[in-house]
């Protein structure tokens, strides 16, 4: 490592390539945890940057550009790649070099983009990725011949292996940046690619045998749908069954911690703040981390395996009938984990109206933040009973809530399609990539990102709001001759009672009303807020209230109230982050306004009906 190299200005390199070339894996391999995700100035597309050092010590800033099939952009994502490559992106300097990542098993498709990028006149090299898959399929590539014909370095990489990027690192260090020769005007790019392939690549079979075997079932009109439904069902079942042991552990831990503080500290405001405010509030939400992680684990694995575009293929006709594009499946599926990345994923939908519609209904897909609320209410109001000998009633009700969200979303899009002006030309044109085994490292990085976002939310907004609620619920303290419970004298109690005017028809008592206010920030906060309000109210004694909340509300609320709150949560947009990302992705407040009105409207109507139906059933 020379000091000179280490001191030199960092190299700016951009990773460019078609979708599904393993670019993100390579990015992860090169930068590890040293990544930062932000936004391009003035646009809503995500900007992924990382940094690393070459063997010589020279620093490199690496930009992972969105996958693009061509510089003729047909979506906002591809427009970013085009603009950065041309140096037209405001606030973004043109990269010093580009590394074009190609899938070695599909050079017929990927080389075309290499030839297109060569016209840019920027120093470039080619990363021949997925060499391990190519070797397995018996594909032989004469790297040197390819290098000679292209006029730029061609390096073999296997992004998923530990040392798989070493060739690329060495090449970046040693090779002088080479600008590829320009092709003459009006070259038939397709013929040029064929010539390259003839000279340098030998392929025994057009497709991998695995792809043929799997697709025979997965793409079949009947079996494909069966497999899809079974996969979704299994996923949701597993999320609830497997997470249980870890959840119990966390619950016990929270209880123990609360008990410890209660025993060790003198009675008073500080102890109350710690036990009833912080531990109760934060603990009640932390309990759901295992479920959320498990859900994301499945979604990430499905994404990495290549299954999701096939699911979009199977569902496209059905979604079209409901007024959505098949490409909306992936963003909507992601919304089951969290609507924020789901709404961001709508960037892959080219048609602006399709995209807007998908963004509007994404909050109806039951996100993981609703789980704490659902689990609490189902645990309190739905008895533990077996239906048809095998299914748990609670599980069925949970499934029913999910189903209600999805059906409502489809109904909304169908209505918009029916009464809106519809132009017919929406593209599907979706690549079905080769099947791959999800790589543990990439899955782990994805999960770690999710966990850190969740914990930041817990540590940040939920902690802050728990303390705020505790404060509002404890002050002012009532005078000695106050007849009712202490909390009703506090700020929280007064606000709650005032709100009751609006919410009484839904069967919401003042405690629920109080919890809904901080609950606007994030859905799971409602559980923390209720835990704090009831704990401070003293009705649960001084145990860690989180664990005691369910039986408390079961005893104090009517069945109708519980059901109404459940239905309220199916629809109500109680999430600042979702509204914020809607604003970012659409660029106007109008979308947010419409979403607020229609979602709160549905929530109010739904809860109103549920309250009455619930009381009839009880």
């Amino acid at each position, binding site marked *: 490592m020379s000091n000179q190299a280490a001191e030199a200005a960092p190299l700016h390199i951009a990773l460019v390539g078609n979708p599904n070339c393993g670019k993100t894996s390579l990015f992860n391999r090169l930068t590890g945890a040293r990544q930062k995700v932000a936004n391009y100035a003035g646009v809503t597309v995500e900007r992924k940057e990382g940094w690393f050092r070459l063997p010589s010590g020279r620093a490199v800033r690496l930009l992972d550009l969105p996958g693009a*099939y*061509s510089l*003729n952009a*047909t979506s906002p994502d591809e427009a970013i790649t085009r603009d950065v490559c041309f140096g037209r992106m405001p606030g973004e300097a043109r990269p010093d070099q580009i590394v074009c990542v190609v899938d070695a*098993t*599909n050079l*017929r*498709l990927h080389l*075309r983009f290499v030839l297109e990028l060569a016209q840019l006149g920027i120093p470039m090299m080619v990363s021949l990725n997925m060499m391990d898959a190519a070797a397995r399929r018996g594909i032989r590539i004469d790297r040197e011949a390819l290098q000679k014909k292209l006029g730029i370095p061609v390096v073999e990489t296997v992004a998923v292996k530990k040392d798989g990027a070493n060739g690329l690192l060495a090449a970046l260090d040693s090779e002088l940046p080479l600008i590829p020769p320009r092709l003459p005007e009006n070259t038939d790019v*397709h013929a040029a690619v064929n010539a390259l392939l003839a000279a340098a690549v030998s*392929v025994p079979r*057009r*497709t991998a045998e695995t*792809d043929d075997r799997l*697709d025979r079932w997965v*793409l*079949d*009109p*009947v079996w*494909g*749908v069966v497999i899809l439904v079974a996969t979704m069902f299994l996923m949701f079942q597993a999320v609830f069954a497997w997470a249980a042991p870890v959840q119990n552990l966390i619950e016990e831990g929270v209880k123990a911690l609360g008990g410890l503080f209660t025993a060790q500290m003198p009675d008073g405001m500080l102890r109350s703040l710690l036990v009833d405010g912080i531990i109760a509030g934060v603990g009640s939400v932390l309990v759901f981390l295992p479920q959320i992680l498990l859900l994301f684990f499945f979604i990430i694995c499905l994404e990495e395996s290549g299954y999701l*575009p*096939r699911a*979009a*293929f*199977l569902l*496209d*006709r*059905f979604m*079209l*009938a409901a007024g959505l594009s*098949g490409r909306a499946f992936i963003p909507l599926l992601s919304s089951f984990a969290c609507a924020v990345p789901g709404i961001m994923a709508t960037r892959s939908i080219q048609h602006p109206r399709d995209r807007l519609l998908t963004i509007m209904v994404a909050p109806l897909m039951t996100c993981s933040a609703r789980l704490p609320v659902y689990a609490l209410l189902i645990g309190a109001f739905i008895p533990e009973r077996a239906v048809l000998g095998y299914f748990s009633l609670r599980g069925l009700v949970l499934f029913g809530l999910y189903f209600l969200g999805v059906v409502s979303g489809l109904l909304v899009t169908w209505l918009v399609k029916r009464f809106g002006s519809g132009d*017919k*030309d*929406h*593209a*599907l*044109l*979706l*690549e*079905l*990539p080769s099947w791959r085994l999800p790589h543990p490292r990439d899955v782990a990085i994805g999960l770690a990102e999710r966990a850190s976002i969740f914990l930041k939310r817990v540590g940040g907004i939920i902690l802050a709001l728990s303390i705020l609620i505790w404060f509002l619920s404890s002050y002012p303290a009532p005078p000695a001759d106050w007849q009712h419970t202490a909390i009703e004298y506090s700020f929280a109690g007064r606000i709650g009672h005032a709100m009751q005017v609006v919410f009484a028809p839904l069967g919401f008592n003042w405690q629920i009303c109080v919890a809904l206010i901080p609950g606007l920030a994030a859905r799971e906060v409602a559980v923390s807020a209720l835990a704090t309000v009831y704990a401070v109210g003293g009705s649960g004694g001084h145990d860690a209230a989180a664990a005691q909340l369910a039986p408390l509300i079961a005893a104090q609320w009517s069945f109708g109230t519980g059901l109404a709150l459940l239905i309220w949560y199916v629809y109500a947009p109680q999430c600042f982050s979702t509204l914020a990302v809607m604003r970012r992705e659409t660029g106007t407040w109008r979308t947010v306004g419409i979403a607020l009105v229609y979602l709160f409207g549905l929530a109010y109507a739904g809860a109103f009906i549920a309250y009455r139906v619930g009381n009839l059933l009880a």
Partner: protein
Amino acid sequence: MNLSLLKRGARAIVEAVEDAHQAGDSIAQRLRELGFAPGEPVSVLAFGPMGRDTMAVQIGFTRFALRRSEAARVRVSLSLPA
């Protein structure tokens, strides 16, 4: 003969991609960029569950899911039986 009229399992050779309306049809342009080029072999892998509106095809080494309206832009000639 165009791609949208082929049956499951059929193999054909691409002749050309035609614009659906006036020139500047971005879907046709994208189809050409994705490898639907004259002389390329194409085969139909499957149709979607509800009618023949969605199809999965293999062009060159890549598989794509297409709508019938997209596939209709691809003019093909049936290849000779092997």
